[in-house]
């Protein structure tokens, strides 16, 4: 399934809980969630540790808006809104971790 996370990992526990549930599939980081995909972020190592279990994506327009489009962690694929749509159709279900 596709997990959609829109919260910063240093502000909320959302992404951590998503990882703990361990559904596999993909994680798409959007809105303030994209900070989790930036180099040097304290959550970076936790995301790196699960790269074997998930495909990791981050929304480009949200990265750019926040001025962090040039510091995306290795292993994270940047997609645009069309790519977001494709991910939703590609996986059987999606869950927004609100």
């Amino acid at each position, binding site marked *: 399934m596709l997990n*959609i996370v*829109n919260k910063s990992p240093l502000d909320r526990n959302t992404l951590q809980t998503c990882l703990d549930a361990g559904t596999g599939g993909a994680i798409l980081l*959007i*809105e*303030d969630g994209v900070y989790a995909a930036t180099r040097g972020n304290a959550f970076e190592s936790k995301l790196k540790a699960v790269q074997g279990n998930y495909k990791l994506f981050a929304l480009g*327009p949200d990265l750019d808006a926040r001025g962090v489009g040039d510091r995306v962690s290795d292993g994270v694929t940047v997609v*645009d*809104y*069309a790519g*977001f*749509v*494709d991910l*939703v*159709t590609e996986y059987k*279900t*999606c*869950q*927004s971790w*609100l």
Partner: protein
Amino acid sequence: MKLAILVNEGPYTHQASDSAYQFTKAALARGHEIFRVFFYHDGVNNATRLTTPPQDDRNIINRWSKLAEEHKLDMVVCVAAAQRRGIVDEGEAKRNGKDATNLAPGFRISGLGQLIEAGIQADRTVVFGD
């Protein structure tokens, strides 16, 4: 593919409505069908025609109305959530004794069943919220 969209937050305060709009636009451009956009919680506040955002900023409400007109979108505002937050059409105004309406073009007020129906009918349901 047939998609349903749920919008849980109001305009400007959270990015949820912006993200939902961009997603919907991209899905239409990709040739997908939008079965319904359902507005719940503070999301119902996306349906007021009384906003006047700064001229150098986007107009979230007009943008939704325009998209609905262009693509014949079914944009449904939850009636219970709308009553709590003061989103009113002619029928609601009459029923609840209100002296004004504020529903924007392209939106209609209906029940939560429309959300469940969308979940059943659509191939995918995507939630945007806080």
